[in-house]
């Protein structure tokens, strides 16, 4: 794996990731293509669909190694979200049609889940799909749709019935973003970047063969995503890479005449995160071990999500703290790859405040940490 990363990961990309600079769509596609060529884009898929026969532990090592090498994160929507759902619930035809297109980059998927009125209470979603002959007609609005501006396809949870429990009237539909009536509107986030969007649907016609699983059983697909494929949700590799970077910064940065790493308060904050991260790594491996023995993690995935995101957030908070007053200047151009102008203060400081603010999302998206706690409570206490 290390050899592969040494050889194939373009320095231009790892430099951008390492320095917290913006990745373009082309950057992400480039890395996907490199992984796909080696057959490692979707290691968690079955071999027959282009995956690997790696164990969960091997996959964990792969994720850790790629993150430590500052490889771009694989965009999860097609590979890690839709792919597993299709493999589990899709028809043969759907698998044959859609899975190769995810791997070869023909399709860039985004996720149409959240709505303005349906966040934590996702099952209360209102975007409707009405069956008319061979089509569903979709009306409504999705929001917080990450990278919809790059996507040509969106998988959606839509309401197909208002009868019974709200979870029982939801279906899982695949929509071509080029269909008339689909409109993407950008949402600017607090760090100034355009990462998420609103996606509006007005009388959008979708062929019925784009239904995944049974009608009104879409919640099963959604729940499947929330538990089964989430053993790497903790992002241990990404945190380890970020922590290494923090250590490097703390060694070189000087405060009151000595290295920041020797400042007792800062050193204690770093040690706390390091201990937490080491503990979580083992927790994660324990979960993988139980998955390897055939168990399905529920509470454990949620625990990994909560603690993983907290650790990531703490590391970015320490990075901004390390920058002192130099966290504050905003140099837009320094966030672009290949920036070789004169930095303001420490070269690494340019993105740290933006990253800190942007990473608030980690505890909000993918099922907020509050929702995860509910899942743990239900699963462990039955309450």
């Amino acid at each position, binding site marked *: 794996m290390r050899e592969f990363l040494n050889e194939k990961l373009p320095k231009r990309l790892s430099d951008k990731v390492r320095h917290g600079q913006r990745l373009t769509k082309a950057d992400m596609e480039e890395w996907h293509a490199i992984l796909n060529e080696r057959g490692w884009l979707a290691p968690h898929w079955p071999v027959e669909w282009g995956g690997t026969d790696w164990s969960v532990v091997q996959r964990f090592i792969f994720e850790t190694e790629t993150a430590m090498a500052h490889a771009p994160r694989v965009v999860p929507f097609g590979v890690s979200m839709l792919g597993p759902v299709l493999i589990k619930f899709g028809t043969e035809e759907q698998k044959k049609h859609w899975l190769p297109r995810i791997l070869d980059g023909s399709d860039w998927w985004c996720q149409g889940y*959240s709505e303005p009125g*349906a*966040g*934590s*209470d996702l099952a*209360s979603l209102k975007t409707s799909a009405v069956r008319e002959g061979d089509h569903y007609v979709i009306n409504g609005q999705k*929001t*917080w749709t990450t990278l919809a501006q790059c996507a040509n396809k969106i998988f959606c949870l839509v309401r197909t019935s208002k009868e019974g429990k709200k979870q029982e009237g939801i279906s899982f539909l695949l929509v071509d973003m080029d269909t008339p009536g689909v409109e993407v509107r950008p*949402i*600017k*986030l*607090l*760090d*100034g970047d355009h990462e*998420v969007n609103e996606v509006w649907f007005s009388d959008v016609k979708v062929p019925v063969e784009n239904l995944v699983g049974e009608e009104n059983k879409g919640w099963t697909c959604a729940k499947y995503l929330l538990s089964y494929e989430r053993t790497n949700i903790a992002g241990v590799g990404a945190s380890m890479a970020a922590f290494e970077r923090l250590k490097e*910064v703390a060694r*070189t*940065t*000087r405060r009151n005449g000595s290295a*920041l790493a020797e*400042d*007792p*308060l*800062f050193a204690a*904050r770093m040690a706390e995160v390091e201990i937490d991260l080491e503990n979580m790594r083992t927790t994660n491996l324990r979960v993988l071990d139980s998955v390897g023995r055939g168990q399905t993690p529920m509470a454990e995935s949620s625990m990994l999500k909560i603690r993983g995101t907290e650790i990531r957030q703490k590391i970015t*908070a320490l990075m*901004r*703290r*390390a*920058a*002192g*007053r*130099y*966290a*504050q*200047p*905003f*140099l837009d151009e320094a966030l672009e790859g290949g920036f070789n102008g004169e*930095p*303001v*203060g*420490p*070269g*690494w*400081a340019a993105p740290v*405040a*933006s990253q*800190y*603010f942007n990473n*608030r*999302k980690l*505890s*909000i*998206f993918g099922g*907020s*940490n*509050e929702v995860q*706690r509910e899942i743990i409570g239900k699963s462990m206490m039955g309450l």
Partner: protein
Amino acid sequence: MDFSLGDDRRMMADSLSRYFADTLGWEARQAAAESEAGFSRDMWAGLAELGVLGMLFGEEAGGYGGSAFDAGAVFAEVGKALATGPFLATLLAGNILEAAGEADLLGEVIAGSKILTFADDPAMDANGVVTDPVKAVKEGDAWRLTGAKGVVDYLGSADLIVVTAETSDGWASFLVEADAKGVKRRAYPLVDGGAAGELSLEGASARLLVSGEDAISKARALGLVATVWEAVAIMEVLRDATIEYLGTRKQFGVPIGAFQALKHRMTSVALEIEQARSAAINAAAYFAKDPRTRDRYGSAAKYTAGKVGALTAEEAIQMHGGIGMSWEMPLSHFAKRLVMLDHVLGDEDAHMARYLKLASAA
């Protein structure tokens, strides 16, 4: 202890509050904060006309305030309005002008005809090491300054710069004209709105204002009081907005504040904010005492504001969910400012360390 601001101070604070409400609505605030100068010159002129800047200085210096509570009252309004502008720079540098008996010059600042800034923090190089500290050398009757200062508030707009520098006899503060020969300025925007810049001096001609570190320490101490009052005012805005959201946003058929987990978390935030307000009052109340007492309370307050500020900002965003992260919502900008205030005049850790040092010196 009297916890009210007093009638005169309250009246001024109220008129400042009205002025911001009338002239610095959200769109105007955003336009000003994102402009090249980072603030609105018209707003600044209006404040000067209203006499607000005079509240920051004593009568002998042409003002009508100058106490720590006066500064606190002004900065609380600045925080509430999320106003950008050289408020802190004017307070800090003006305090040094006041100590130097520069009433005429300060009069021009109070009248809004001169923009003043304060260059105190050292510049750091690309590796994060303090580089090129400013040194002052006397040549006949004149002084020349050489060296660099980092993240100087509103440097690009400043007419006059008060610079702290080392002389052969220790620290002193100097006045430098922003367009003087040997003065180089690199201006840039800030992540929370507003602007600052890197200052580099190459034998720039300067006038000695005050010798010794006492006046600088006093100015910084007053700056701490102001910053903490600003921070607490922002916390209260975030608290009120979040409580309102918890009461109106419905999920699972009920307002989300009805969930005990959220309700109790919000309660903890509110409790911490009350502690921070008390810390801010302490810092103002002990400001006129001996320097050690003054600085202990100053550090206690800045430490508290840093800790509670991060908690308040993070919880306000988290409890709002995605919407709390959107640029469109004023809330996210209040949160950014609050977190960034921890980076001004020393953060939580720096002030915990100073507090420990001052305590052990007792």
